[in-house]
């Protein structure tokens, strides 16, 4: 099953990357703020999966500089998807005046990755070696200004809040006026469903670790759990690449 997890995730990364490239190749989409936000969200998820796979397979030891860089990006996934949905449902609506407040966690993450980024190669290699042996080091190491486990907790909590707001957007939209195509609505609903599943599984894993900290390393590498995430990611990536791309408005 370990192999399946890696294979699914790898294929998922490939299709995600392809989806981003295809979207960027479309001039109209490239200038559309909603599509830009969506691409950022897609890339952040892809990077997350990529780094996780590198850790699981141990290849992160060859690329220690890849580690930790994604933390700020991960904070962007939830707001990006939220505003993407909002801009699609209400094209006339503009971004909020204080939109940059939503990027504060990104900035905060950017600051927190500095200690690792400034560490020596030897320190990075040593940490990567420990990380590969015990993946729970990922939230136990000292290369950061805050306890690293807070990144998981804050990110997922924020994601949960954004997700609720995203669902509210979808619910509140008035479909009787006929301004929004049913295809777009279906796409946005499905996107939110898949993203919700991602969040639910991730929060479940975090809860599982919180209640069984001793086995954090095992839980984080438990293929019987990761297989759900990787399968979901594979389906999502393929759908985004081939299915959803054709339905964008």
């Amino acid at each position, binding site marked *: 099953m370990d192999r399946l997890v890696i294979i699914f995730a790898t294929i998922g990364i490939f299709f995600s990357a392809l989806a981003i490239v295809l979207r960027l190749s479309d001039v109209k989409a490239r200038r559309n703020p909603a599509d830009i936000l969506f691409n950022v969200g897609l890339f952040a998820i892809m990077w997350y999966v990529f780094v996780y796979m590198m850790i699981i397979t141990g290849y992160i030891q060859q690329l220690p500089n890849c580690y930790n860089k994604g933390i700020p990006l991960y904070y962007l996934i939830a707001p990006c998807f939220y505003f993407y949905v909002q801009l699609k449902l209400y094209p006339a609506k503009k971004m909020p005046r204080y939109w940059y407040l939503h990027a504060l966690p990104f900035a905060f993450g950017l600051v927190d990755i500095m200690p690792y980024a400034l560490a020596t190669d030897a320190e990075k290699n040593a940490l990567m070696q420990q990380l590969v042996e*015990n993946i729970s080091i990922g939230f136990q190491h000292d290369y950061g200004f805050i306890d690293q486990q807070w990144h998981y907790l804050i990110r997922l909590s924020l994601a*949960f809040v954004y997700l*609720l707001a995203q*669902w*509210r957007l979808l*619910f*509140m939209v*008035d479909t*009787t006026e006929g301004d929004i195509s049913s295809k777009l609505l279906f796409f946005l609903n499905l996107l939110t469903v898949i993203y919700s599943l991602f969040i*639910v*599984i991730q*929060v*479940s*894993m975090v*809860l*599982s670790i919180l*209640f*069984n900290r*001793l*086995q954090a*390393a*095992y*839980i984080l590498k438990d293929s*019987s*759990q990761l297989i*759900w995430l990787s399968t979901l990611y594979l389906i999502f990536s393929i759908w985004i690449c081939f299915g959803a791309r054709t339905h964008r408005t």
Partner: protein
Amino acid sequence: MFIKLLVGLLLPYCRAAASPYHYAQVLTGIDNHHQMISSAAKDQLGMVWVVSGGLLYRYNGVNVTAFSRLYKQQLPFDEVSAVTADSWGRLWIDTRNGLFVFDTNTWSFPTQLPYVNGLIGKSVFALFNRGDAFFLADGEGTIWQIDESTKKRISGFDTRAIIDRKPLGKLLVVDNEHAWLAFGDKLYGIALHTGKKQVVPFPKGLFDHLEDLLPVDGGVLLRIYSEGYYLFDGDGFRYLPRSEFPTNDFTNWNHWSFVKDDKVIVFHEDKYFEFSRDTAFRLLDEDTHVIDEGILHKRLNGWQQGQDEWLLCTDQGVYSVFPAKIPFNFIACGSARGMVRQQDTYYFGGYGYLDSWSKTSDLQPYTAAPENNYYTFFALSNDTTCIAMEGDFLNFLVNGKVSAAPLHLPDTTQERFNGMAYCIARQSPDTLLVGTYNGIWQYALSSGIVRPLMCPTYGFFSRGMRVQSISYSGGDVTYTTDQGFFSWKPGSFRKVYPADETKLNVYAHALSGDSVYLATKGRGLVILDSKGTHSRMVNVDNGLASNTVYQLMDVSHTLFMGTHEGLSILKDNRLYNYQHTDGLPFEEFNHQAIFYDKKEDLLFMGGIGGYISFTPTELLHASPIYMDKPLLSGTRMGLKTNRYVDDYARKTLQDTIYLPSDAVWFSMDFARPNYYRQAYRMLFRIAPLMEEYQEMPVSSQINLSGISAGNYYVSVKIQAINASEAEQIHTWVIHKEPVFTETLGFYVLLILGVSGILCYILYERSRKIKDEYKLRRGISRDLHDEVGGLLTGIAMQTDLLRLKPGQILGRSVESLGSYSREAIQMMDDIIWAVDSRNNQQGNLSDRMKFLARQLLEPKNMSITFDMDQEEGKLIKQTVRQNLYLIFKEAIHNICKHSEASAVYIRLHHTGKEIKMVIQDDGKKKGMATDKLRMGRKGQGQQNMHLRATQIGATLKSGFTENGYEVVVSVPIRRYLFSGYKEFVSFFKIS
């Protein structure tokens, strides 16, 4: 005469060598009350299988477990007489019910496999394990050669003889050339390569006294009770008289022998012999041993070779005899103290006579000197040694002659002089420092005057101290006592270690470079810097043999320590230990009994049994490491509801062990094979519970309890005592299955549940807002569509009033009144529609009746209402509003276009749907009129259909046999919590 007699008595105990074989007790017995072991064998994993009282047991180095417990199923036998192990993990069990073979790999009794097929249940006369093959002589007269998977018949023998005495030794022996079987007054010799068989009758009576067979080159040796050894060399039997044997008693009580490589090893009484393993039976070496006292006198019941040792079963447990790793030269002079060498003779101190030994003469008591307590020897020159006497202060040994040292105690000495001297150091060419039971005294060699070592500041600073070692260097005196380590120089005296008031018995000290080494009782070796400010302990935790060190000496930057439990060596921060099983004849060393002969490069270390001597560098070479792989010998699992599962089978004790979700605790029993040979220590670690390895508990049992789901890595490390870098680690993965509340599914459900509640709350809030928006939009639309049109009409009529004459004016005013009333009606309808207090079905019915009567009765149309008046049934505001407006449109159509005389109106709420029917008896007329009835599609019909769509209803309209009919069906959707809402509303209504 008395002295000669005494010498004669002591001589046997003064031995200058010992056999290269040692022994250790493997097992004291099944328990304290069952110590008689009749048979024992060791399998390839190191487990010892023993037979006692007709039952088979397994000893894993820690615990003895009955085979009936290890093997869960019904045993195929009741009484076991012997057990033999082959090299492939199989036990050949000779029972009263015949032969059975137990495979420890598959944990089963194979019966049909080729190597065992046909043998199960047969009687067995003899078994022999050669290592690479297993041999068996069965009760049907066949000798089988068995290997890992097959067997072959190599010869047969006559089974008709009656054997009334079965010796403890072997009746069947096999070497590479021949198999020899002694059975029924006949000796069978089978050449293995040619299959040629030789059958020779024993000389009369010889077989009846046969004790053992030993295969040798060119024949076989026969040990005969009370006679010794016979040889059969292929031609005949030949007696081998050997004068070296101390007696003619060759019973198992005092005699034991075996073949090893090209030698025949014989233990006879306390003598050890090595003979050539051939027909010449030449004596190669002779020594002494203590196996007779240690093992043979305990009544030997049988023996078997296993790996590189021999397991001997006795009435008091099982013993192992094995070759020692280091050939220590042993000087058995009894409990040892100091020693010295003068010319080529070594003199050993102790209690009683001195002992002397040289290369040219045996060890013997040195009776030229009187009996005394010779404690420590201090060489003043090559031919003069000063001896610290435990009682008589000092003696001199000059060229082998002992004399008491002259002793003059000045009258002015105020301190109490004590003649118990323990150590000596030289302060000046004429002055010795002597450590006594009462402090340090100065002894003048030239005058014999003795006085206490006084300090101008502190006086007799060592008063009352038992001084155990002393050094003098550069004006500083350092010494150890039973209270610690001290340092003195004129004007300065301090307790160096322990620096506080703690008392610590320090037996000896050695200065080397910038370090001071202390031999302590309880703290092992303590290393101090030259100032004594920093200390470091080296003790058992670091690998030292014992925390009690009696003696130490630095030889070429290597520290040799005699401890309470063996010899420890410290070289470059690496420790080497040697113990009994490594060849040490004793493990407990003595204070001050250490001497280095620089000329011969021999280090002498003395203990309770005498002295050992060796070349120091010899012990620094890595010796063969006898280490076993970590082995799990059993598991026990406690499940919920007080259920237990034991497992001992090898096939289930795999590297990954799965625990079910209801496992409450898990216990692992680790074997300690060959632990009696003191070759290794065992450590363990459980990840992620522990970060470092810990010493395995004596029980060798690791328990895991209250464990949560996940993987636990139990690593067991076997570390060679003499080479800590030589180790074997094996890791078992314990996988605990999760209970439901530990699964991802549970957490997903939990989150979905919490999210669901949150979402529902948010949904309800959002829905209200959304409904409000909708309602507002509806009202504005209705106001615009309905009232707006009427008001426009009124405005237009008003404009016309100004232009038109009187008659027309009257009609216009009438129109104005009509429009105004209609506008009021419209407003009233809209207000009624948005008022949620009218959501009960009764309100709708009443409203419909009111409207119908208002419009239809003036037209003389009879109205029939068919309505169920259940107050409790709620109709959603949107449904109610749209239904009413559809109804209103239909009634207006009847008024305007039907010319009907009767109208039928029905409104039924079944709970699953609301059905509304408006029917009139107007007749179908012309196309144009009918279009008017049906065709207000631009306005009325279209509105009706739109409204029906908005509430998810179906609307049908058209002529039937009875007239024109409009039917609206509204399905009622039951949402989650709708029951709850009805329940709440019921109470509200109540």
